[in-house]
């Protein structure tokens, strides 16, 4: 019993002296003290100047529900290079926005946005909000077409801001309309001309007789933005069409023209038997009301863009660097002539969009404005993946607490010895 008590007293003394020694040691060689500075999406930019002035031993951590601006991300990356431990976590919406010029005489900008399902998108420029939409539950994003924009365009995906510059305007080249003389060819060419496209026509009238513009352009992307084939007479252009598309030119295969031997290999699908519809005398004529050639056997590398009942009416495919659109309608002129009020304008707009979707655009040149933004990608690239905040380090246990423990140990040891009758 006595031995046990003595050991306790010795133990208290040893621990007390050990702590005294540790205190002396840490006073000579102090442990690094780590402070973790924290910020959220809303105040991270405001905190950056003060973070810049903190010692590099301070860890910096941001909890983000939206990626900071490019300036903020670059600033954080600079702090990391300066020796700070910079970390972030949170779940900013993965989003990317790309702006591209609309290849049409009217110009404009198309902004395509990839964003999480159900997120809300708001598009604005310096003059104010332009448009907004919500990504559908199973959607991948959305697109906006802006006829006119002032300077750059800003976009919000929920709270995530994105900014894309207004791309340089591209003056579209001419469009060649090739077909037999008929209403469809005439009204397609007319609709495009009325929308401001420069249209060159080549209409077959009789064997060896074409009605054509006096100056026929070369079939290349220096002269043409797109070729519209109204029917199988596109075959007279031969292999030039394939070369043109592979160079980046656009090709619209309307009606049954995709069946022409020289272009069938380019088509998104084959030409199905024409679907004919009975049109009553009182029916309003719309696009496809009187029937169409369905796109049959859509190729694996093609995509169906429009369906009518069980049939595909519009399908698209990339060939080389060009685009090919197969449009099953062969008498859209009926929609223009005999459609409801406004059908003439709708016919013009529809055909202009069809051509615009495939028209050749020159490759982006150096010095082009920044037409895409992917803030979360930039965040990952500059700061790495999300990580939890570093643990705060205060440089050891509070010395006042240690002093109190030492005094308590010595007091217990002294009391124990006195109770045993020792000094």
């Amino acid at each position: 019993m006595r031995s046990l008590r003595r050991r306790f007293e010795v133990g208290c003394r040893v621990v007390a002296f050990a702590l005294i020694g540790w205190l002396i040691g840490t006073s000579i060689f102090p442990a690094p003290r780590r402070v973790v500075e924290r910020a959220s999406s809303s105040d991270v930019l405001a905190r950056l100047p003060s973070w810049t002035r903190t010692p590099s031993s301070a860890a910096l951590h941001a909890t983000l529900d939206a990626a900071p601006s490019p300036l903020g991300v670059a600033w954080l990356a600079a702090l990391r290079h300066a020796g700070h431990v910079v970390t972030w976590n949170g779940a900013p919406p993965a989003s990317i926005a790309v702006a591209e010029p609309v290849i049409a005489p009217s110009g404009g900008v198309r902004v395509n946005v990839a964003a999480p399902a159900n997120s809300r998108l708001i598009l604005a420029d310096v003059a104010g909000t332009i448009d907004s939409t919500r990504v559908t539950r199973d959607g991948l994003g959305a697109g906006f077409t802006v006829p006119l924009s002032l300077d750059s365009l800003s976009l919000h995906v929920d709270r995530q801001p994105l900014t894309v510059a207004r791309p340089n305007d591209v003056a579209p080249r001419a469009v060649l309309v090739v077909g037999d003389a008929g209403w469809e060819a005439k009204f397609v060419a007319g609709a495009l001309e009325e929308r401001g496209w420069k249209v060159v026509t080549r209409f077959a009238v009789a064997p060896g007789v074409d009605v054509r513009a006096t100056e026929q352009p070369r079939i290349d992307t220096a002269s043409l933005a797109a070729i519209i084939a109204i029917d199988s007479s596109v075959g007279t252009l031969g292999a030039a069409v394939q070369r043109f598309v592979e160079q980046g030119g656009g090709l619209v295969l309307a009606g049954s023209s995709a069946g022409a031997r020289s272009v069938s290999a380019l088509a998104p699908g084959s030409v199905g038997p024409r679907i004919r519809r009975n049109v009553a005398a009182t029916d309003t004529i719309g696009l496809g009301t009187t029937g169409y050639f369905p796109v049959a056997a859509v190729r694996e590398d093609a995509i169906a863009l429009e369906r009518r009942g069980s049939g595909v009416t519009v399908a698209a495919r990339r060939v080389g660097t060009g685009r090919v659109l197969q449009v099953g309608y062969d008498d859209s002129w009926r929609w223009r002539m005999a459609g409801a009020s406004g059908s003439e304008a709708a016919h013009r707009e529809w055909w202009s969009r069809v051509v615009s979707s495939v028209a050749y655009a020159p490759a982006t040149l150096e010095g082009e404005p920044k037409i895409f933004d992917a803030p979360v990608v930039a965040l990952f690239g500059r700061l790495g993946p999300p990580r939890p905040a570093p643990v705060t380090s205060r440089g050891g246990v509070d010395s006042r607490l240690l002093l109190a423990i030492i005094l308590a140990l010595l007091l217990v040891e002294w009391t124990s010895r006195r109770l045993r009758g020792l000094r």
Partner: protein
Amino acid sequence: MTTEFVFATAQYDSGDWDSAPLVPANIIDTIARYTEINVAPTGVIAPLSDPRMLRYPFLYLTGHLPVRFSDAERRNVRQFVDRGGLLFIDDHNHDIDGVFHKTATEEIARTVAPLAELPNDHPLYSSFFKFDGPPTTSHELNGWGDNLVHKHLLAVQRRGRIAVLFSSKDYSSEWNYHPDSKRFLSVDNTRFAVNLVVYALTA
């Protein structure tokens, strides 16, 4: 195959719209004879008062008697022209002082726009066969009607295209015969009709 060209004769409430009943068949025969245009074997009659007239972008209108469009006819003709149709009017009287000429030109001025002389180097005259201007007709040369050889056709143009073409040449008499009778002609006098149709389909 493109949708076929249908030769449509305009029917209007006033006057004798069917005064040249053999013209459609004769023109259809001519189109088929000289071109590869996919032409319907028979023509149709398109009442101007019925919006279904808009299904035929080329309309042939003729007669001897006064032309007065009803409100519905006027509305449809205006829409027809606005949407890109071509209305070919031929004076079956061949008489610029006649009632058809006076009333039809007034009606077109009221409904669409005043008619103006069409230059003789207009693409219409070279769209298929080459002409120096509107071909003359035997009725002009025989002194019928106003005893004049009309050097020009009249037209209303929209966006650089002929929307209404008015003829005082009396092609309705010139072309109003059975197609088989063409074999008796040294030169087919319906060739200008090919230019009309080709122009309508390509301009």
